[in-house]
């Protein structure tokens, strides 16, 4: 068992750990180590943050395959609207009628694709995995503040996943009102069959999902604030931790608002209230609901919805910062500016929600206020992009798979971010809204970027997670297929979007204006499906490497942060001896005068006399 590794294993990584005085954590450790746990408690109902992280990751990967499969299905419909899809009958059953995809099921596919990708993959799968895995390891803690709550967080997510997954198999179909579930469409089962049982299960599932997010978020924040090791001040935290910390705060503040909206929607659907419904006729029948406001729902939804996109992207930003610095062998450019821009993005994310609602008839003055605030977000985003590029500039770059995905992230973030400036303008948005331009924008800047951050993170921390390396060759193939695939999918979408091609349309062949885009649609669909299948290279690589990968060394990337000072496979409690103390910031790469090109955070200044800067000599004791 790796937990029994001798303490000396700890100091294999080049420069050893400094002798530090005894800490009180010592005796705590022995409670954990010397009893064999039943496999059920070790692998299933585990309270160890590393196991919970792996559970989140594998559940997230499962969801990503489902979400990707759904998108391949509706891309088939969009790319080849005239084709007969009888061969899908074994998979889709009654949703294929007469060789055609059922139009309502098409909407359900789009809805579930959005829901799954945004919430289950990129929120739970991304920040759930890496916040859990990296926060205790990088701040120097034995585990999360509350291992039990952490376990509950995963199992609420699991429950929510089970409910959402089973809603795919309902006879009336899963929810079909778009991932934003705007009422009245989502509130009235008479309107679309997906708003019946499917919507109910969607709401129940999301309630559990929110509970999971809150339990997790409270834990992350508490751990970062209270459980940092000796010397780990907030200004010595790796940028990953800053990103996870702010992400968790965003989640704690914004998810309850979604809960409010969902609760009111439940009341409207099942208890006859009229929060969001008014003056509705269905099939000539007047409904009793009076006085509700559907726009109110949009306000509540987007008050979560906008911070949500930063909940998705900020963990990726943090990990990319870390991976770029490590593999460029250079300190991150502008460490404090990086933290400042993360804080700036977090604050601004709460005051821009109505830019999703420019065309709801809001007061143009209000629209211009939100436009102004939205465009300000370009400033911290620009700071980040500049700093990433400046970190790469004249770096001694090691092109590992993780590094490729991190650079790919920066590329996608720039391409997608630029169109955000266009869409953030209220006047331009009137032309662009609900076209494929919007789809292209958010898939690049949030969807694909966050996925690239996720891949980068998996390739980079895989050795720490499983004690083995992933295959680099397969990683390269995976990267290039995905990178080229993503651009081939979303670049043409901008073009058809500018021409006014509307999103969420099942069939566009009836409109003369759009039939000229048949070729482009076919092209996009083909690229999307190829890119989807390219992901199986990653999945194969992942599972093969867990069991057969090359064995990892203790610090394979020569990185400075604390997680690489643990044994190759850390036991429960992370460090077999005492927790290392921290003396320096996490980005001492290629420091002039240093013996190695990296100095881990736990090396005191007294051991690095040759590279100390003048003010650091005073810290030398």
């Amino acid at each position, binding site marked *: 068992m790796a937990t029994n590794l001798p303490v000396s294993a700890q100091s294999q990584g080049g420069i050893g750990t400094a002798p530090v005085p005894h800490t009180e954590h010592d005796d705590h450790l022995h409670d954990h180590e010397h009893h064999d746990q039943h496999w059920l408690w070790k692998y299933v109902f585990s309270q160890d943050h590393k196991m919970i992280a792996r559970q989140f990751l594998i559940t997230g990967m499962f969801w990503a395959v489902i979400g990707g499969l759904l998108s391949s299905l509706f891309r088939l419909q969009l790319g080849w609207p005239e084709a007969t899809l009888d061969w899908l009958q074994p998979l889709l059953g009654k949703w294929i009628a007469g060789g055609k995809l059922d139009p309502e099921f098409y909407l359900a596919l789009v809805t579930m694709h959005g829901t799954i990708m945004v919430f289950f993959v990129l929120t739970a799968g991304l920040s759930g995995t890496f916040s859990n895995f990296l926060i205790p390891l990088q701040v120097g803690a034995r585990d999360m503040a509350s291992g039990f709550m952490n376990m509950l967080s995963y199992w609420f997510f699991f429950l929510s996943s089970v409910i959402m997954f089973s809603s795919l198999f309902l006879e009336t179909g899963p929810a079909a009102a778009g991932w934003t579930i705007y009422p009245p469409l989502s509130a009235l089962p008479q309107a679309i069959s997906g708003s019946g049982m499917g919507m109910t299960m969607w709401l129940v599932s999301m309630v559990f999902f929110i509970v999971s997010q809150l339990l997790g978020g409270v834990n992350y924040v508490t751990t970062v604030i209270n459980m940092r090791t000796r010397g780990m001040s907030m200004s010595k935290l790796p940028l990953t931790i800053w990103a996870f910390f702010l992400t968790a705060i965003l989640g704690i503040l914004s998810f309850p608002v979604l809960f409010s*909206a969902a609760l*009111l929607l439940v009341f409207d659907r099942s208890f006859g*209230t*009229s929060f969001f419904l008014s003056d509705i006729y269905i099939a000539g029948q007047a409904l009793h609901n009076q006085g509700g406001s559907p726009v109110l729902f949009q306000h509540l939804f987007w008050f979560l919805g906008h911070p949500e996109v930063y909940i998705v992207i900020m963990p990726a930003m943090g990990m990319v910062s870390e991976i770029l610095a490590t593999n460029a062998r250079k300190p991150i450019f502008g460490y404090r500016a990086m933290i400042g821009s993360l804080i700036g993005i977090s604050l601004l994310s709460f005051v821009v929600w109505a830019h999703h609602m420019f065309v709801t008839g809001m007061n143009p003055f209000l629209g211009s206020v939100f436009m102004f605030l939205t465009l300000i977000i370009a400033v911290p985003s620009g700071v980040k992009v500049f700093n990433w590029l400046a970190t790469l500039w004249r770096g001694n770059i090691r092109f590992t798979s993780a590094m490729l995905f991190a650079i790919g992230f920066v590329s996608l973030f720039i391409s997608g971010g630029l169109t955000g400036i266009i869409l953030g303008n209220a006047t331009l948005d009137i032309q662009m809204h609900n076209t494929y331009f919007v789809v292209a924008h958010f898939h690049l800047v949030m969807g694909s970027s966050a996925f690239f951050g996720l891949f980068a993170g998996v390739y980079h921390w895989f050795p720490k997670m499983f004690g083995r390396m992933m295959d680099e060759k397969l990683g390269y193939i995976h990267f290039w297929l995905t990178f080229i695939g993503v651009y081939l999918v979303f670049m043409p979408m901008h073009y058809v979007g500018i021409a006014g091609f509307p999103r969420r349309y099942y069939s566009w062949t009836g409109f003369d204006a759009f039939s000229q885009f048949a070729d482009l649609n076919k092209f996009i669909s083909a690229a999307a499906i190829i890119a989807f299948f390219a992901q199986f290279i990653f999945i194969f690589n992942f599972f093969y490497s867990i069991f057969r990968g090359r064995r990892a060394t203790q610090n394979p990337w020569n990185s400075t942060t604390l997680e690489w000072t643990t044994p190759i496979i850390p036991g429960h409690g992370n460090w077999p001896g005492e927790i290392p103390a921290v003396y320096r910031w996490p980005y001492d790469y290629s420091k002039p005068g240093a013996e190695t090109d990296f100095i881990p955070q736990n090396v005191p200044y007294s051991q690095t006399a040759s590279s100390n800067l003048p003010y650091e000599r005073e810290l030398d004791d």
Partner: protein
Amino acid sequence: MFAAFTSGYIVRRDEGNWREFDLPMSLLFNSIVIALSSASMQWAYYSSKQDEVKRVNLGLLLTLGLGVVFLLGQLHAWSELVAGHTFFGGADANPSGSFVYVLMGVHAFHLITGLIFVAVVLKRSLNYQVHSRAMLSIGNATIYWHFLGGLWWYLYLFLLLNH
């Protein structure tokens, strides 16, 4: 979450088609009850600091009792609302009334969790597990209870001023 509800309330009210009605007087009575329960909770907290176990038990019991009275009072207020033809749902309902039910209902749900929490602390206190060196549970319960009381006062004043 309550911030979301109350701001939703304001946004919605400004859009018109908003039926005005008077809040039942019993809400004022309930507000006083919950303020008293906060006081008794604080008294229990201070007593536990001084290891006065009997007073802690009494204070917690008082808090529990007042909490239950508050809940019953809220139920009574609902029946007064219904008597005044302000309904939660159905053909005669207006969002102005539905909002009041939602705010009171969600608050009541939190209050029930608070009652459970206080009851757990009371059980520990009866086992002599709450004293000046074991303040964590009663400390957290006190914070939570004050939060619930303060929240109710916020909601009450909000409804009073904005209807």
